[in-house]
């Protein structure tokens, strides 16, 4: 009886360990990805000299034009959401490390917060993708001209940041799925 109990206990602990280890790795990955995404988009600024023709008879004027990340509110939203997710990932990393007894309430709280992060990160990624697509392709119906033919590096940086934050959102989604499966396994 005692031996059986001990064996059972060991199996359960091993299971928890393996899940927790992958959880820690994923959490750290999410932290790094959202941090890099926020920084890449947050330092995004490009100045270009654009020649403008004011009158057909005059020689074209060269005007420096600057594109900054905070000119578009969708990018501001994405940077804020990335920062929130990054800070939350750091806090939850500490909580998961400290939560050695695997308290049920704390685990549920972390799952719910992960879920909210999924929603926030996906909506921020969607918003920035929509604005970036308008900048890349333009919209002839609304006469919104594209800007990516002028600002190359700016657009590349936005695309990189978008990719990283959507990857971070996917990692949060995987974390929620893994902890759900873990919860179902305990049944």
């Amino acid at each position, binding site marked *: 009886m005692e031996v059986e109990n001990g064996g059972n206990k060991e199996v359960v602990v091993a299971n928890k360990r393996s899940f927790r280890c992958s959880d820690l790795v994923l959490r750290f990955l999410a932290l790094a990805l959202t941090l890099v995404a926020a920084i890449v988009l947050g330092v995004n600024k490009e100045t270009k000299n654009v020649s403008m023709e004011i009158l057909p008879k005059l020689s074209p004027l060269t005007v420096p034009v600057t594109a900054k990340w905070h000119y578009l509110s969708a990018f501001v939203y994405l940077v804020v959401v990335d920062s929130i997710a990054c800070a939350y990932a750091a806090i939850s990393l500490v909580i998961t490390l400290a939560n050695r007894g695997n308290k049920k309430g704390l685990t549920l709280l972390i799952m719910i917060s992960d*879920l909210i992060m999924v929603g926030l990160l*996906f*909506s921020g*990624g*969607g918003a920035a993708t929509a604005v970036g697509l308008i900048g890349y392709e333009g919209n002839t119906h*609304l006469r*919104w001209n594209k800007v990516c033919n002028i600002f190359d590096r700016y657009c590349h940086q936005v695309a990189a940041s978008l990719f990283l934050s959507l990857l971070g959102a996917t990692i949060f989604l995987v974390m929620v799925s893994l902890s*759900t499966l873990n919860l179902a396994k305990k049944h």
Partner: protein
Amino acid sequence: MGETETQAVLHHGEKRATAAPEAPRSFAVADVVLRFLLFAAAVISVLVMVTSNEKKTFSVPLPTNPITLTEVTRTSKWRYSPAFVYFVVALSVAGIYSIITFLLALLALMKRSMPTKLLSHIIIMDVLLLGIVSAATGTAGAVGYLGLKGNTHTSWAKICNRYHKFCRHIGGSIVVSLIASVILVFLVLLNIYALSKRIPK
């Protein structure tokens, strides 16, 4: 051997019997109601978005003779923006998915239990759908905000001062889809709580 097996089965049954009252019936009822609300929200937001097309006539000066005005008819359609197309597709997927899970939840309500494996898979699908719907809300919200305020830096002019009905429909649709994503969050929360209630102590 047979005896131990039957004992195990009995033990298992006992466990089930003790575990059953832990996940109250109100959870299943709330699940069904929330899934119906999700379906309603998805359908409403798709319908409101699809019916947003607006035709308007503007008086524009002629390019050859700027003093005389001509009438120009322009139509603003949701299909012109890829963000709104994605929005409609995503919310339609949410509607179809919510019908299927509504039927599953109804079945579980009548049979009084849902298998744990199915429940965990439904939670994971719900989280995936939450990602899709919130991304759709984000895309449509970003484009709608640009249409409402415009952007002077990129010289994207606002259009909501000209197309009133179009903008009202799109704003309403975005608000309803936001409600849909909040309902999804509550659904996942409810189901995770129900799943954790099932764990035998």
